């Protein structure tokens, strides 16, 4: 029982670390991409300038757009990460300014991830429509 308890605690810590790093790798990858002019127009985002509270609004737009079927889990992971960041900001943001600034940057990156996902979905739907028109 003791070993199980130790494994439970240690693995929970590792799980959070791996999950945070995985989400940050997704965010870093999408942050390196540029939005198409259509996506910039729809989202109102120009030159990576996302407000930290834009994530939910962008996610609603993403959900309106039919999915290509390959990013749902990653969006869910980033949504969870965003919720973790909100929790972290609520708990320690007012006490440690460095944490608040870092959390805000993470929230901005989450917003940009949602914008990139929306961009991909718009492109996917455009290509589907073009195919249907040709047919």
């Amino acid at each position: 029982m003791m070993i199980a308890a130790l494994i439970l605690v240690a693995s929970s810590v590792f799980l959070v670390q791996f999950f945070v790093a995985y989400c940050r790798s997704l965010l870093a990858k999408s942050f390196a991409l540029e939005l198409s002019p259509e996506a910039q127009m729809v989202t109102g985002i120009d030159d990576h300038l996302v407000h930290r509270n834009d994530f939910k609004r962008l996610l609603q737009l993403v959900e309106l757009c039919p999915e290509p079927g390959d990013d749902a889990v990653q969006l869910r992971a980033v949504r969870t990460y965003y919720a973790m960041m909100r929790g972290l900001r609520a708990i320690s943001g007012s006490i440690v300014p460095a944490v608040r600034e870092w959390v805000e940057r993470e929230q901005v990156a989450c917003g940009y991830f949602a914008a990139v996902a929306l961009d991909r979905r718009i492109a996917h739907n455009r290509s589907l429509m073009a195919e249907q028109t040709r047919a």
Partner: protein
Amino acid sequence: MLGSLLNVTWMAGIGFSLYVVARAILHKDFIRYFPLNFYLLSLALLSLGRRIILIRLGIDSEAYLYFYYYSDTLLTILLFFAILGLYQHVFAEMNVGKYIRGGGFMLLLLTAGVSYMMVQQNTQNMTSRFVVGLSQNLYFVGVVLTYVLWGAVLQLRETRTRIVQLVLALGVFFSAHAVFYAARYMFPSMVMQVPWVASLLGISLPLAWAYTFTMIPEEARLETARIAARPAASHR
């Protein structure tokens, strides 16, 4: 409702596994990522085997129980080889392949030895509690191996996005399973209330790897310093 969820996750698990393998063959990546592909192929076949036994003998049969847990143990050991394959990718430029293979062989012997001792001591008591304990320990070994690999990725400033995401997905998979099995060992009745968790955890790895191989080209690069979660680090 639960039955349909289990059906969907079962089919999705097989589908994503075969998709990654087929994609690797088409893109001539099968050998490059052989341990990963071999694991996914085995996962698809053993999932099919589990399904056949489930349909023929039922979910409450002993045969299904043992096949489920021991195939899970086998898959975990195959995942150790997948980790070793990733070690070889990370240390490729240092020409330490023979040491990694030696280490892997030692690890396999050690795992086999410890498992054999555990089975020997529990021959009169081969209960589901024992197999849950065995799985919990194996998954934890996987967590530690992946964590060491992740440390090496950070130290060596590995920039290949694919490798980074494959390693991190593996870390999430192993640690989530270790948490689940440890909780199951400690609170068996409580965790039995959520049978869908194991199914969702089971498809998480093929799904994450399918995403990585589809969305991340081999030549994509990433600064690992951006991933290490520290309040001082920035995305910009």
